[in-house]
Protein backbone atom coordinates (compact mmCIF):
# COMPACT_ATOMS: atom_id res chain seq x y z
CA UNK A 1 0.00 0.00 0.00
CA UNK A 2 1.42 3.38 -0.98
CA UNK A 3 0.40 6.45 1.01
CA UNK A 4 1.26 10.14 1.19
CA UNK A 5 4.14 11.04 3.50
CA UNK A 6 3.41 12.84 6.77
CA UNK A 7 4.65 16.35 7.48
CA UNK A 8 7.35 15.01 9.79
CA UNK A 9 8.59 12.52 7.20
CA UNK A 10 8.59 15.22 4.52
CA UNK A 11 10.77 17.45 6.66
CA UNK A 12 13.33 14.70 7.21
CA UNK A 13 13.56 13.87 3.48
CA UNK A 14 13.72 17.52 2.42
CA UNK A 15 16.56 18.06 4.88
CA UNK A 16 18.55 15.32 3.11
CA UNK A 17 17.90 16.93 -0.30
CA UNK A 18 19.06 20.24 1.12
CA UNK A 19 22.19 18.70 2.66
CA UNK A 20 23.31 17.32 -0.71
CA UNK A 21 22.44 20.49 -2.66
CA UNK A 22 19.56 19.09 -4.74
CA UNK A 23 16.62 20.95 -3.15
CA UNK A 24 15.60 22.39 -6.51
CA UNK A 25 15.05 18.87 -7.85
CA UNK A 26 11.91 18.73 -5.70
CA UNK A 27 10.05 21.27 -7.87
CA UNK A 28 6.76 19.84 -9.23
CA UNK A 29 7.30 16.55 -7.44
CA UNK A 30 5.76 14.84 -4.45
CA UNK A 31 6.82 12.05 -2.13
CA UNK A 32 5.02 8.75 -1.67
CA UNK A 33 5.68 6.08 0.93
CA UNK A 34 5.27 2.31 0.69
CA UNK A 35 4.95 0.31 3.91
CA UNK A 36 6.81 -2.98 3.45
CA UNK A 37 6.36 -6.18 5.47
CA UNK A 38 9.67 -5.87 7.33
CA UNK A 39 8.70 -2.40 8.70
CA UNK A 40 10.99 -0.73 6.15
CA UNK A 41 9.31 2.12 4.33
CA UNK A 42 10.31 2.81 0.72
CA UNK A 43 10.23 6.44 -0.36
CA UNK A 44 9.38 7.44 -3.93
CA UNK A 45 9.64 10.80 -5.60
CA UNK A 46 7.06 11.25 -8.33
CA UNK A 47 6.04 13.97 -10.77
CA UNK A 48 2.85 15.73 -9.58
CA UNK A 49 0.99 14.44 -12.61
CA UNK A 50 1.34 10.81 -11.40
CA UNK A 51 -0.45 11.52 -8.12
CA UNK A 52 -3.78 10.18 -9.41
CA UNK A 53 -2.22 6.81 -10.23
CA UNK A 54 0.14 6.22 -7.32
CA UNK A 55 -2.26 6.31 -4.36
CA UNK A 56 -4.10 3.11 -5.24
CA UNK A 57 -4.36 -0.16 -3.28
CA UNK A 58 -2.62 -2.09 -6.11
CA UNK A 59 0.18 0.43 -6.55
CA UNK A 60 3.64 -0.86 -5.60
CA UNK A 61 6.12 1.45 -7.32
CA UNK A 62 6.21 4.83 -8.99
CA UNK A 63 8.62 7.52 -10.14
CA UNK A 64 12.04 7.00 -8.56
CA UNK A 65 12.74 5.11 -5.37
CA UNK A 66 15.07 7.49 -3.58
CA UNK A 67 15.56 5.63 -0.32
CA UNK A 68 14.00 4.06 2.73
CA UNK A 69 12.82 5.11 6.17
CA UNK A 70 14.18 3.05 9.02
CA UNK A 71 13.48 4.09 12.60
CA UNK A 72 12.63 7.67 11.60
CA UNK A 73 15.88 7.95 9.66
CA UNK A 74 16.02 8.48 5.90
CA UNK A 75 18.53 6.17 4.17
CA UNK A 76 19.20 7.38 0.62
CA UNK A 77 19.43 4.84 -2.21
CA UNK A 78 21.88 4.71 -5.12
CA UNK A 79 19.20 6.48 -7.21
CA UNK A 80 19.27 9.40 -4.77
CA UNK A 81 23.04 9.71 -5.21
CA UNK A 82 22.62 9.48 -8.97
CA UNK A 83 20.52 12.64 -8.70
CA UNK A 84 23.22 14.20 -6.49
CA UNK A 85 25.94 13.37 -9.02
CA UNK A 86 23.90 14.94 -11.83
CA UNK A 87 22.38 18.03 -10.24
CA UNK A 88 24.67 19.08 -7.38
CA UNK A 89 28.14 20.51 -6.93
CA UNK A 90 28.00 20.11 -3.20
CA UNK A 91 29.51 16.68 -2.55
CA UNK A 92 32.81 15.00 -1.82
CA UNK A 93 34.05 12.51 -4.36
CA UNK A 94 36.89 10.41 -5.62
CA UNK A 95 37.69 9.37 -9.17
CA UNK A 96 38.98 5.84 -9.68
CA UNK A 97 40.85 4.18 -12.56
CA UNK A 98 39.54 1.29 -14.71
CA UNK A 99 40.82 -1.33 -12.31
CA UNK A 100 39.08 0.35 -9.39
CA UNK A 101 35.91 0.60 -11.47
CA UNK A 102 35.84 -3.17 -12.04
CA UNK A 103 36.43 -3.89 -8.34
CA UNK A 104 33.61 -1.60 -7.24
CA UNK A 105 31.15 -3.32 -9.56
CA UNK A 106 31.95 -6.53 -7.70
CA UNK A 107 31.23 -4.76 -4.41
CA UNK A 108 34.87 -4.62 -3.33
CA UNK A 109 36.50 -1.85 -1.28
CA UNK A 110 38.91 0.61 -2.89
CA UNK A 111 42.67 0.61 -2.69
CA UNK A 112 44.53 3.89 -2.51
CA UNK A 113 46.47 3.19 -5.71
CA UNK A 114 43.19 3.01 -7.75
CA UNK A 115 42.27 6.58 -6.81
CA UNK A 116 43.14 9.16 -9.46
CA UNK A 117 41.58 12.17 -7.71
CA UNK A 118 40.05 12.95 -4.32
CA UNK A 119 38.19 16.08 -3.11
CA UNK A 120 40.27 18.22 -0.77
CA UNK A 121 38.06 18.19 2.32
CA UNK A 122 37.57 14.47 2.86
CA UNK A 123 37.77 13.55 6.56
CA UNK A 124 37.85 10.13 8.17
CA UNK A 125 34.31 8.63 7.91
CA UNK A 126 33.12 11.15 5.31
CA UNK A 127 30.49 9.80 2.91
CA UNK A 128 31.80 10.20 -0.61
CA UNK A 129 30.64 9.54 -4.16
CA UNK A 130 32.79 7.16 -6.17
CA UNK A 131 33.04 8.23 -9.82
CA UNK A 132 34.87 6.86 -12.85
CA UNK A 133 37.09 8.83 -15.25
CA UNK A 134 34.00 10.10 -17.11
CA UNK A 135 32.57 11.31 -13.77
CA UNK A 136 29.79 8.71 -13.83
CA UNK A 137 28.52 7.39 -10.51
CA UNK A 138 29.77 3.93 -9.56
CA UNK A 139 28.87 3.86 -5.90
CA UNK A 140 29.00 5.39 -2.45
CA UNK A 141 31.77 4.88 0.05
CA UNK A 142 33.05 5.82 3.48
CA UNK A 143 36.54 7.28 3.73
CA UNK A 144 38.90 5.51 6.13
CA UNK A 145 41.43 8.31 6.02
CA UNK A 146 41.85 12.05 5.53
CA UNK A 147 42.41 13.32 1.94
CA UNK A 148 46.14 13.46 2.46
CA UNK A 149 46.39 9.71 3.06
CA UNK A 150 43.61 8.54 0.77
CA UNK A 151 45.86 7.59 -2.18
CA UNK A 152 48.19 5.48 -0.07
CA UNK A 153 49.52 2.46 -1.99
CA UNK A 154 48.46 -1.07 -1.06
CA UNK A 155 45.91 0.00 1.55
CA UNK A 156 42.11 -0.05 1.43
CA UNK A 157 41.27 3.59 1.93
CA UNK A 158 37.55 3.63 1.01
CA UNK A 159 34.90 1.19 2.22
CA UNK A 160 32.25 0.68 -0.47
CA UNK A 161 28.75 1.07 1.02
CA UNK A 162 26.58 0.89 -2.08
CA UNK A 163 27.30 0.42 -5.76
CA UNK A 164 25.41 0.15 -9.02
CA UNK A 165 25.93 -3.65 -9.12
CA UNK A 166 24.38 -4.32 -5.71
CA UNK A 167 21.00 -5.40 -7.06
CA UNK A 168 22.34 -7.83 -9.66
CA UNK A 169 24.62 -9.49 -7.12
CA UNK A 170 21.72 -9.95 -4.72
CA UNK A 171 19.65 -11.49 -7.56
CA UNK A 172 22.44 -13.97 -8.39
CA UNK A 173 22.82 -14.77 -4.72
CA UNK A 174 19.09 -15.55 -4.47
CA UNK A 175 19.29 -17.95 -7.44
Amino acid at each position, binding site marked *: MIREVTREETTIIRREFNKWGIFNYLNDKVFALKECKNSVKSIFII*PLILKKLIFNPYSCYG*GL*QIGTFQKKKFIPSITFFDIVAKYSNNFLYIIVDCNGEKLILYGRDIFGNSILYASENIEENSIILILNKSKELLGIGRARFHTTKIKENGKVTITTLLDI*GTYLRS*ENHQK
Partner: protein
Amino acid sequence: MCTLVYVIVLEIFRLFFLFDHANHIISKIIKVLVNCKTSNHIIFIKIKIFTLLSLKLMSCIILPKSDYSQELATKYNFKEWMIARYLTIVPNTEKFLDYINNKVVNQYIRINTLKIDIDTLKQKLLEKDFKLEKTLLAEVFLIKEAKYPIGATMEYLSGYYYIQDLSSCLAVESLDIEEDDLVLDMASSPGGKTSFMAQKMNNKGMILALESESKRLRKMMFNLSRCGVVNTVLWNMKGENIGNYDFKFDKVLLDAPCSCDGIMQKDPLRKTTYSKESIKFCSIRQSQLIESALNVVKPGGLLVYSTCSLAPEENEFIINSIIDKFDITIESIDYGGVDSLIKFGGKVMDKSIKFTKRFYPHIHNTAGFFVAKIRVNNIEK
Protein backbone atom coordinates in the same frame (compact mmCIF):
# COMPACT_ATOMS: atom_id res chain seq x y z
CA MET B 1 -35.89 -11.13 -10.68
CA CYS B 2 -33.60 -10.02 -13.51
CA THR B 3 -30.50 -10.94 -11.45
CA LEU B 4 -31.95 -14.38 -10.67
CA VAL B 5 -32.58 -15.07 -14.36
CA TYR B 6 -29.08 -13.87 -15.14
CA VAL B 7 -27.50 -16.21 -12.54
CA ILE B 8 -29.56 -19.23 -13.66
CA VAL B 9 -28.79 -18.71 -17.34
CA LEU B 10 -25.09 -18.27 -16.62
CA GLU B 11 -24.94 -21.40 -14.48
CA ILE B 12 -26.64 -23.46 -17.18
CA PHE B 13 -24.09 -22.27 -19.69
CA ARG B 14 -21.21 -22.85 -17.28
CA LEU B 15 -22.31 -26.49 -17.00
CA PHE B 16 -22.62 -26.68 -20.75
CA PHE B 17 -19.16 -25.16 -21.04
CA LEU B 18 -17.65 -28.05 -19.08
CA PHE B 19 -18.76 -30.67 -21.58
CA ASP B 20 -16.96 -31.29 -24.80
CA HIS B 21 -19.73 -30.52 -27.29
CA ALA B 22 -19.08 -30.24 -31.00
CA ASN B 23 -17.79 -26.82 -31.97
CA HIS B 24 -20.17 -26.41 -34.91
CA ILE B 25 -23.18 -26.54 -32.56
CA ILE B 26 -21.65 -23.77 -30.46
CA SER B 27 -20.94 -21.70 -33.58
CA LYS B 28 -24.59 -21.99 -34.55
CA ILE B 29 -25.73 -20.85 -31.10
CA ILE B 30 -23.40 -17.85 -31.35
CA LYS B 31 -24.91 -16.91 -34.73
CA VAL B 32 -28.44 -17.16 -33.32
CA LEU B 33 -27.46 -15.03 -30.33
CA VAL B 34 -25.90 -12.39 -32.56
CA ASN B 35 -28.91 -12.18 -34.84
CA CYS B 36 -31.78 -12.35 -32.34
CA LYS B 37 -33.36 -9.06 -31.24
CA THR B 38 -33.59 -8.71 -27.49
CA SER B 39 -34.53 -6.08 -24.97
CA ASN B 40 -31.77 -4.05 -23.29
CA HIS B 41 -31.59 -5.92 -20.00
CA ILE B 42 -31.02 -9.23 -21.80
CA ILE B 43 -28.09 -7.82 -23.81
CA PHE B 44 -25.72 -8.12 -20.84
CA ILE B 45 -26.60 -11.81 -20.43
CA LYS B 46 -26.19 -12.28 -24.18
CA ILE B 47 -22.69 -10.83 -24.12
CA LYS B 48 -21.67 -13.07 -21.20
CA ILE B 49 -22.97 -16.18 -22.94
CA PHE B 50 -21.33 -15.06 -26.17
CA THR B 51 -17.97 -14.70 -24.39
CA LEU B 52 -18.24 -18.11 -22.72
CA LEU B 53 -19.11 -19.79 -26.00
CA SER B 54 -16.33 -17.98 -27.85
CA LEU B 55 -13.88 -19.26 -25.24
CA LYS B 56 -15.20 -22.76 -25.74
CA LEU B 57 -14.31 -22.45 -29.41
CA MET B 58 -10.68 -21.77 -28.56
CA SER B 59 -8.66 -24.88 -29.05
CA CYS B 60 -5.39 -25.98 -30.55
CA ILE B 61 -5.79 -26.99 -34.19
CA ILE B 62 -4.21 -30.32 -35.01
CA LEU B 63 -3.14 -30.76 -38.62
CA PRO B 64 -2.74 -34.10 -40.42
CA LYS B 65 0.68 -35.70 -40.11
CA SER B 66 2.73 -36.84 -43.10
CA ASP B 67 5.89 -38.83 -43.80
CA TYR B 68 7.76 -35.55 -44.13
CA SER B 69 6.54 -34.26 -40.76
CA GLN B 70 7.54 -37.56 -39.18
CA GLU B 71 10.99 -37.35 -40.77
CA LEU B 72 11.54 -33.80 -39.56
CA ALA B 73 10.25 -34.62 -36.08
CA THR B 74 12.79 -37.43 -35.78
CA LYS B 75 15.62 -35.39 -37.29
CA TYR B 76 15.12 -32.33 -35.08
CA ASN B 77 13.71 -34.04 -32.01
CA PHE B 78 10.37 -32.24 -32.03
CA LYS B 79 6.87 -33.50 -31.33
CA GLU B 80 5.26 -34.45 -34.64
CA TRP B 81 2.11 -32.39 -34.15
CA MET B 82 4.31 -29.33 -33.74
CA ILE B 83 6.14 -30.04 -36.99
CA ALA B 84 2.84 -30.60 -38.84
CA ARG B 85 1.74 -27.14 -37.70
CA TYR B 86 5.06 -25.44 -38.45
CA LEU B 87 4.98 -26.79 -42.01
CA THR B 88 1.84 -24.69 -42.55
CA ILE B 89 2.78 -21.68 -40.41
CA VAL B 90 6.50 -21.10 -40.94
CA PRO B 91 8.09 -20.40 -44.33
CA ASN B 92 11.28 -22.48 -44.98
CA THR B 93 10.41 -24.76 -42.10
CA GLU B 94 13.58 -26.82 -42.28
CA LYS B 95 15.77 -23.72 -42.10
CA PHE B 96 13.74 -22.60 -39.09
CA LEU B 97 14.23 -25.93 -37.33
CA ASP B 98 17.96 -25.82 -38.11
CA TYR B 99 18.11 -22.34 -36.65
CA ILE B 100 16.44 -23.45 -33.43
CA ASN B 101 18.55 -26.57 -33.08
CA ASN B 102 21.74 -24.57 -33.54
CA LYS B 103 20.57 -22.22 -30.76
CA VAL B 104 21.45 -19.12 -32.77
CA VAL B 105 20.63 -16.21 -30.49
CA ASN B 106 21.07 -12.68 -31.73
CA GLN B 107 21.58 -10.20 -28.96
CA TYR B 108 20.34 -6.68 -29.37
CA ILE B 109 20.75 -3.66 -27.15
CA ARG B 110 18.52 -0.61 -27.01
CA ILE B 111 20.34 2.58 -26.11
CA ASN B 112 18.51 4.38 -23.33
CA THR B 113 18.43 7.99 -24.48
CA LEU B 114 16.95 9.03 -21.12
CA LYS B 115 20.46 8.60 -19.74
CA ILE B 116 22.92 8.95 -22.62
CA ASP B 117 22.94 9.91 -26.27
CA ILE B 118 23.42 7.28 -28.96
CA ASP B 119 26.82 8.42 -30.25
CA THR B 120 28.39 8.72 -26.80
CA LEU B 121 27.40 5.20 -25.80
CA LYS B 122 28.44 3.77 -29.16
CA GLN B 123 31.86 5.33 -28.64
CA LYS B 124 32.13 3.93 -25.09
CA LEU B 125 31.26 0.43 -26.25
CA LEU B 126 33.65 0.62 -29.20
CA GLU B 127 36.41 1.49 -26.72
CA LYS B 128 35.54 -1.74 -24.91
CA ASP B 129 35.89 -3.68 -28.18
CA PHE B 130 32.18 -4.20 -28.77
CA LYS B 131 31.15 -4.52 -32.41
CA LEU B 132 27.71 -3.12 -33.15
CA GLU B 133 25.52 -3.31 -36.24
CA LYS B 134 22.71 -0.92 -37.11
CA THR B 135 19.10 -2.12 -37.26
CA LEU B 136 15.77 -0.74 -38.48
CA LEU B 137 15.57 1.43 -35.37
CA ALA B 138 18.09 4.17 -34.64
CA GLU B 139 18.43 3.31 -30.95
CA VAL B 140 18.68 -0.48 -31.36
CA PHE B 141 21.92 -2.29 -32.28
CA LEU B 142 22.82 -5.89 -32.94
CA ILE B 143 25.83 -7.08 -30.92
CA LYS B 144 28.18 -8.71 -33.41
CA GLU B 145 31.03 -9.18 -30.96
CA ALA B 146 31.50 -8.53 -27.24
CA LYS B 147 34.53 -9.24 -25.08
CA TYR B 148 32.58 -8.99 -21.83
CA PRO B 149 29.14 -10.32 -20.86
CA ILE B 150 26.81 -7.53 -21.96
CA GLY B 151 24.76 -7.76 -18.76
CA ALA B 152 27.69 -6.98 -16.47
CA THR B 153 29.25 -3.80 -17.85
CA MET B 154 29.28 -0.48 -16.04
CA GLU B 155 27.21 0.92 -18.92
CA TYR B 156 24.52 -1.73 -18.43
CA LEU B 157 24.38 -1.25 -14.67
CA SER B 158 24.16 2.51 -15.16
CA GLY B 159 21.12 2.01 -17.38
CA TYR B 160 22.74 3.30 -20.56
CA TYR B 161 21.37 0.35 -22.48
CA TYR B 162 18.80 -2.41 -22.15
CA ILE B 163 19.24 -5.90 -23.57
CA GLN B 164 16.11 -6.29 -25.67
CA ASP B 165 15.15 -8.09 -28.84
CA LEU B 166 14.54 -5.96 -31.92
CA SER B 167 11.03 -7.41 -32.30
CA SER B 168 10.03 -6.18 -28.82
CA CYS B 169 11.23 -2.70 -29.73
CA LEU B 170 9.19 -2.81 -32.94
CA ALA B 171 6.03 -3.46 -30.92
CA VAL B 172 6.65 -0.23 -28.96
CA GLU B 173 7.59 1.63 -32.15
CA SER B 174 4.21 0.66 -33.63
CA LEU B 175 2.39 2.45 -30.80
CA ASP B 176 3.25 5.89 -32.29
CA ILE B 177 3.73 7.24 -28.78
CA GLU B 178 3.68 10.98 -28.15
CA GLU B 179 5.18 12.78 -25.16
CA ASP B 180 2.01 13.67 -23.31
CA ASP B 181 0.11 10.42 -23.85
CA LEU B 182 -1.53 8.40 -21.10
CA VAL B 183 -0.25 4.89 -21.80
CA LEU B 184 -1.16 1.48 -20.38
CA ASP B 185 1.22 -1.48 -20.40
CA MET B 186 -0.98 -4.47 -19.55
CA ALA B 187 1.62 -7.16 -18.86
CA SER B 188 4.73 -5.21 -18.14
CA SER B 189 7.45 -7.23 -16.38
CA PRO B 190 10.46 -7.21 -16.77
CA GLY B 191 10.01 -3.63 -17.97
CA GLY B 192 11.89 -3.52 -21.29
CA LYS B 193 8.96 -2.24 -23.29
CA THR B 194 7.81 0.04 -20.46
CA SER B 195 11.21 1.71 -20.26
CA PHE B 196 11.33 2.07 -24.05
CA MET B 197 7.92 3.76 -23.93
CA ALA B 198 9.19 6.13 -21.22
CA GLN B 199 12.17 6.85 -23.45
CA LYS B 200 9.86 7.63 -26.39
CA MET B 201 7.88 9.96 -24.11
CA ASN B 202 11.03 11.64 -22.83
CA ASN B 203 9.86 10.80 -19.29
CA LYS B 204 6.77 13.01 -19.76
CA GLY B 205 3.09 11.99 -19.84
CA MET B 206 2.04 8.96 -17.78
CA ILE B 207 2.50 5.23 -18.03
CA LEU B 208 0.48 2.78 -15.96
CA ALA B 209 2.24 -0.58 -15.92
CA LEU B 210 0.39 -3.68 -14.72
CA GLU B 211 2.00 -6.90 -13.55
CA SER B 212 0.02 -9.67 -11.90
CA GLU B 213 2.89 -11.85 -10.69
CA SER B 214 4.38 -10.52 -7.45
CA LYS B 215 7.65 -12.39 -7.89
CA ARG B 216 8.37 -10.52 -11.13
CA LEU B 217 7.95 -7.07 -9.60
CA ARG B 218 11.41 -6.75 -8.05
CA LYS B 219 13.18 -7.15 -11.37
CA MET B 220 10.78 -4.72 -13.00
CA MET B 221 11.45 -2.12 -10.30
CA PHE B 222 15.20 -2.58 -10.72
CA ASN B 223 14.98 -2.11 -14.48
CA LEU B 224 12.80 1.01 -14.26
CA SER B 225 15.09 2.48 -11.64
CA ARG B 226 18.28 1.57 -13.54
CA CYS B 227 16.91 3.15 -16.72
CA GLY B 228 15.92 6.37 -14.91
CA VAL B 229 12.21 6.00 -15.70
CA VAL B 230 10.24 8.62 -13.80
CA ASN B 231 6.84 8.76 -15.50
CA THR B 232 5.64 5.28 -14.60
CA VAL B 233 3.47 3.82 -11.85
CA LEU B 234 3.43 0.05 -11.37
CA TRP B 235 0.33 -1.78 -10.14
CA ASN B 236 0.41 -5.37 -8.95
CA MET B 237 -2.86 -6.26 -10.68
CA LYS B 238 -4.26 -8.52 -13.40
CA GLY B 239 -4.67 -6.74 -16.71
CA GLU B 240 -8.20 -8.14 -17.03
CA ASN B 241 -9.32 -5.97 -14.08
CA ILE B 242 -8.32 -2.59 -15.50
CA GLY B 243 -11.92 -2.04 -16.63
CA ASN B 244 -12.90 -1.61 -12.96
CA TYR B 245 -11.25 1.82 -13.03
CA ASP B 246 -12.46 4.91 -14.74
CA PHE B 247 -9.40 5.42 -16.93
CA LYS B 248 -9.21 5.76 -20.69
CA PHE B 249 -5.81 5.55 -22.35
CA ASP B 250 -4.42 7.10 -25.53
CA LYS B 251 -2.24 4.06 -26.19
CA VAL B 252 -2.33 0.53 -24.81
CA LEU B 253 0.35 -2.11 -25.21
CA LEU B 254 -0.71 -5.69 -24.66
CA ASP B 255 2.33 -7.91 -24.89
CA ALA B 256 0.26 -10.90 -23.90
CA PRO B 257 1.47 -13.86 -21.85
CA CYS B 258 1.93 -16.65 -24.40
CA SER B 259 3.22 -20.15 -25.05
CA CYS B 260 6.55 -18.61 -26.18
CA ASP B 261 7.52 -20.97 -28.99
CA GLY B 262 9.03 -17.93 -30.72
CA ILE B 263 11.93 -17.98 -28.28
CA MET B 264 12.70 -21.70 -28.44
CA GLN B 265 16.21 -20.98 -29.72
CA LYS B 266 16.95 -19.21 -26.42
CA ASP B 267 15.27 -21.80 -24.26
CA PRO B 268 15.39 -25.29 -25.85
CA LEU B 269 13.45 -26.72 -22.88
CA ARG B 270 10.33 -25.24 -24.49
CA LYS B 271 10.55 -27.94 -27.18
CA THR B 272 9.44 -30.46 -24.58
CA THR B 273 7.20 -28.28 -22.39
CA TYR B 274 5.25 -26.81 -25.34
CA SER B 275 1.80 -28.39 -25.43
CA LYS B 276 -1.64 -28.13 -26.98
CA GLU B 277 -3.00 -27.29 -23.53
CA SER B 278 -0.62 -24.34 -23.18
CA ILE B 279 -1.84 -22.94 -26.51
CA LYS B 280 -5.46 -23.32 -25.42
CA PHE B 281 -4.82 -21.89 -21.96
CA CYS B 282 -2.92 -18.90 -23.31
CA SER B 283 -5.44 -18.15 -26.04
CA ILE B 284 -8.27 -18.01 -23.50
CA ARG B 285 -6.31 -15.56 -21.32
CA GLN B 286 -5.29 -13.51 -24.36
CA SER B 287 -8.89 -13.28 -25.50
CA GLN B 288 -9.95 -11.93 -22.10
CA LEU B 289 -7.02 -9.52 -21.97
CA ILE B 290 -7.57 -8.04 -25.41
CA GLU B 291 -11.24 -7.38 -24.68
CA SER B 292 -10.33 -5.66 -21.41
CA ALA B 293 -7.71 -3.64 -23.29
CA LEU B 294 -10.13 -2.51 -26.00
CA ASN B 295 -12.58 -1.34 -23.36
CA VAL B 296 -10.07 1.15 -21.93
CA VAL B 297 -8.69 2.65 -25.16
CA LYS B 298 -9.97 6.14 -25.93
CA PRO B 299 -11.90 6.46 -29.20
CA GLY B 300 -9.24 7.17 -31.82
CA GLY B 301 -6.60 5.58 -29.61
CA LEU B 302 -4.30 2.69 -30.41
CA LEU B 303 -3.84 -0.81 -29.07
CA VAL B 304 -0.78 -2.82 -30.01
CA TYR B 305 -1.15 -6.55 -29.39
CA SER B 306 1.95 -8.72 -29.49
CA THR B 307 3.14 -12.18 -28.50
CA CYS B 308 6.35 -14.18 -28.89
CA SER B 309 4.29 -17.15 -30.05
CA LEU B 310 3.96 -18.54 -33.56
CA ALA B 311 0.60 -20.22 -32.91
CA PRO B 312 -2.23 -18.65 -34.97
CA GLU B 313 -4.61 -19.44 -32.07
CA GLU B 314 -2.71 -16.90 -29.98
CA ASN B 315 -2.29 -14.36 -32.76
CA GLU B 316 -4.47 -14.09 -35.86
CA PHE B 317 -7.42 -15.92 -34.24
CA ILE B 318 -7.40 -13.48 -31.30
CA ILE B 319 -7.46 -10.46 -33.60
CA ASN B 320 -10.10 -12.07 -35.82
CA SER B 321 -12.32 -12.69 -32.78
CA ILE B 322 -12.49 -8.97 -31.90
CA ILE B 323 -13.11 -7.62 -35.39
CA ASP B 324 -16.85 -8.38 -35.23
CA LYS B 325 -17.29 -7.37 -31.61
CA PHE B 326 -15.60 -3.95 -31.61
CA ASP B 327 -15.52 -1.01 -33.97
CA ILE B 328 -11.83 -1.20 -34.82
CA THR B 329 -9.48 -0.90 -37.76
CA ILE B 330 -6.40 -3.06 -38.17
CA GLU B 331 -3.61 -0.76 -39.34
CA SER B 332 -0.53 -1.82 -41.24
CA ILE B 333 2.89 -1.94 -39.59
CA ASP B 334 5.74 -0.33 -41.47
CA TYR B 335 8.70 -1.98 -39.79
CA GLY B 336 9.36 -5.19 -41.69
CA GLY B 337 8.02 -8.63 -40.90
CA VAL B 338 5.81 -10.71 -43.20
CA ASP B 339 2.03 -10.57 -43.59
CA SER B 340 0.20 -12.80 -41.17
CA LEU B 341 -1.88 -15.86 -42.04
CA ILE B 342 -5.42 -15.30 -43.25
CA LYS B 343 -6.35 -18.98 -43.14
CA PHE B 344 -5.23 -21.81 -40.94
CA GLY B 345 -6.63 -25.27 -40.25
CA GLY B 346 -9.67 -24.64 -42.44
CA LYS B 347 -10.51 -21.37 -40.68
CA VAL B 348 -10.60 -18.32 -42.94
CA MET B 349 -10.09 -14.99 -41.26
CA ASP B 350 -10.97 -11.38 -42.03
CA LYS B 351 -8.91 -9.89 -44.85
CA SER B 352 -7.60 -7.09 -42.65
CA ILE B 353 -5.64 -9.65 -40.60
CA LYS B 354 -2.98 -9.53 -43.32
CA PHE B 355 -1.96 -6.08 -41.99
CA THR B 356 -0.68 -7.68 -38.80
CA LYS B 357 2.92 -8.88 -38.99
CA ARG B 358 4.91 -11.97 -38.15
CA PHE B 359 8.63 -12.10 -37.48
CA TYR B 360 10.57 -15.34 -37.82
CA PRO B 361 13.96 -16.07 -36.23
CA HIS B 362 15.52 -17.56 -39.38
CA ILE B 363 14.28 -14.78 -41.67
CA HIS B 364 14.39 -11.63 -39.56
CA ASN B 365 17.10 -12.51 -37.01
CA THR B 366 14.71 -11.72 -34.18
CA ALA B 367 12.64 -13.83 -31.83
CA GLY B 368 9.52 -15.35 -33.38
CA PHE B 369 7.03 -12.55 -32.87
CA PHE B 370 3.56 -11.35 -33.81
CA VAL B 371 2.41 -7.72 -33.80
CA ALA B 372 -1.00 -6.20 -34.51
CA LYS B 373 -1.80 -2.50 -34.54
CA ILE B 374 -5.44 -1.84 -33.75
CA ARG B 375 -7.10 1.57 -34.02
CA VAL B 376 -10.25 1.96 -31.93
CA ASN B 377 -12.97 3.88 -33.71
CA ASN B 378 -15.71 3.43 -31.14
CA ILE B 379 -16.24 1.10 -28.24
CA GLU B 380 -18.51 -1.94 -28.39
CA LYS B 381 -21.03 -2.22 -31.21
